[in-house]
């Protein structure tokens, strides 16, 4: 207790200026070499902004790997009459980011792409990117159906499951994908219950609930 200098008491010391009725964000010493990053911006805190910038600046996949990822993503989610393809929705870039964010996906993805190229060379003596569309599908068909795939392709199946998951998540969380899905929320509104035609479709009503609300 007595070693604590009275001058260090708040109001007199360096920790912050006391103004009654105000918040004191304690003074953070500035690091001269670092570009000024705000305390918070767009809902992210300084440390998160720095962390995200670091992830975005790093590169994981090679150009060759990214082209296979792009081909596979568009095989999994092609353009149709409702919306564009996975690559048009930015899925490859999402996958590049997410493996840096979640390093547990790195080896399964990189190794899976290698597996695919090995299989491709075995079957067609060419790398996957050099195959025709029909040839590519022949390989994809070996691994796209977990229940009927051959045992010797089980690692390929695991890779393709991961690729399918990341592609679908990347697509349906993109602006294009959310629109495609028909999610209509995330906007100010007044909730007044399930639309009548939907209630009718399921043979439900608010009669029971109204008994609660009336009490």
């Amino acid at each position: 207790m007595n070693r604590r200098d009275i001058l260090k008491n708040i109001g007199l010391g360096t920790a912050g200026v006391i103004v009654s009725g105000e918040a004191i964000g304690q003074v953070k010493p500035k690091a001269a070499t670092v570009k000024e990053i705000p305390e918070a911006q767009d809902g992210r805190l300084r440390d998160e902004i720095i962390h995200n910038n670091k992830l975005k600046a790093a590169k994981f996949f090679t150009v060759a790997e990214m082209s296979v990822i792009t081909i596979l993503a568009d095989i999994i989610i092609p353009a149709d009459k409702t919306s564009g393809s996975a690559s048009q929705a930015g899925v490859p870039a999402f996958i590049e980011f997410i493996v840096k964010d979640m390093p547990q996906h790195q080896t399964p993805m990189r190794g899976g792409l290698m597996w695919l190229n090995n299989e491709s060379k075995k079957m067609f003596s060419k790398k996957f990117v050099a195959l025709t569309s029909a040839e590519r599908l022949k390989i994809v068909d070996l691994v796209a159906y977990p229940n009927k795939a051959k045992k010797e392709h089980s690692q390929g199946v695991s890779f393709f499951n991961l690729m399918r998951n990341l592609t679908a998540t990347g697509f349906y969380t993109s602006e294009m994908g959310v629109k495609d899905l028909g999610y209509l929320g995330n906007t100010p509104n007044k909730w007044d219950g399930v639309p009548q035609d939907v209630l009718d479709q399921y043979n439900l009503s608010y009669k029971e609930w109204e008994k609660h609300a009336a009490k």
Partner: protein
Amino acid sequence: MKDFQIKEQANVFDVVIVGSGAGGGMAAYQLTKAGAKVCMLEAGGYFDPADPKYINQLKGPWESPRRGASTVRAFGDFDAAWGGWEIEGEPYTRKKGTEFDWFRSRMLGGRTNHWGRISLRFGPKDFKRKSVDGLGDDWPISYDDMAPYYDEVDKLIGVFGTKEGLSNDPDSIFLPAPKPRLHELMLMEANKKTGVLTIPSRMSMLTKPLNGRGECFYCGQCSRGCMAYADFSSSSVLVIPAMKTGNLTLINNAMAREVLTDETGKATGVSYVNKYTLEETTVKGKIVILAASACESSRLLLNSKSSINPNGLANASGVVGKYLHDSTGASRSAFIPHLTNRKRYNEDGVGGMHVYSPWWLDNSKLDFPRGYHIEYGGGQRMPGYGFGFGMENVNGKYPDRSGNVKEAGGYGASLKDDYRFFYGTDIGMAGRGEAIAREDNYCEIDPNVVDKWGIPVLRFNYKWSDHEVKQAKHMQDTFEEIIHALGGIANGTKPGADTNYGLAAPGRIIHEVGTVRMGNDPGKSALNKNCQAHDVKNLFVVDGGPFVSQADKNPTWTILALSLRASEFIMKEVKAKSL
């Protein structure tokens, strides 16, 4: 109340409060309104859910590079909590063979920023459990003692719900309840068959404007913080208004180390570490109120050792840190086939369920004590990271839009359509129950470990007993009954004895309470019934610490009511010059 005054002394506050969550926020609100000069220490940064730089509300999933995944924040990028179960440089330890995960939010408002807003009063039995089943202890107060304070909390903060007249789930002063969503109507129907009572939720979102705060606009994103202040968080509803009185001095990024005392044992203030300068600083107060969270407040007390308090402050009884208990939790989800190919409409609603099931059974016919409530999830929710995962486990089992059961997995246009077809077909159920407070579940100071501020850390020792495991088993059986009655198909396999029936590790439900318990016997409790330390007259604890037992209800509404009650007691004592 306006004449609440302690003679002003230079640099001595009337009250120092540690922590800005539900308990600290309520005390600051009440005491500053009454004219006291209050200093609040908060270990994290400033937060105002209406300040654009902090806002995540109404962002689309693509606005997060990880699509809202939980890599950085425990509940995902858009969640309001700054903190989590693990915080860099702020470790805690566990005794061998025991578990406890400790969630901390380092920010103004603490965990009230991201909480579920489930706002339940404890019932008459919840204060007198020992008298009911012989386990644990009775509270030194009753529901009747608390009812007027619950009323005040309802009126000040706002809670929606419906009057049900249930014996142990007392009604609040309710705002109108929102109508159930489609799956919630289905649950109400299904539970007529199972007998699981299912009623409108009781949650603190404003379905009508209240006390100058805006009305809910039904984005379903309360956990991100509300720019309209239309839900309860301590930051927006209590601390920011307290600051507007001009009587509150808020010091952010102040990591409290210990409560200081004089030679008579009276509290004189709090010492803290300025997290940026790493300087140790003291703030003096005539009254000290701890509201740092049940475990953080007991850590502070246990670290406040002196020659007259060798076991830590307010701990002559030795109970500080003991009787730690969190809610039990187990969950299950299911696929509802008749919800495929749903018509699209906005059913975000409030940020959480519109119906729930309070405990509905009689324990005398069951093999475990105490009860649980069930929370329900589902609907056409905003997609985020993880959306569509595991389609290969779904699209080979159930017919698609054209009525064919396909080979599982696949790719291409047909797969793309499956994500649309199966969207919004899952429902989730989570049980949240009451654990028994036991002396041998505790936190204590680890003799070997300090955090990066040099403050000795907590070591936890917590094990579930058979009571809680049996309760989780009952939850799982109930979930399957409900799923069956819904015509649904349960996802995954039913959690069995090998996983304690899916019982979550203690601390995971983030309802931990009991470590600075109140009681009439100073030998068996740290606080009296007014949240005042038996040993230190001018020291109070107003977070989850004072709880004697936790009930099958979320603790926040009771923390708020207890803190309000303690604040009123403090004002009365100051007026009577007894403090």
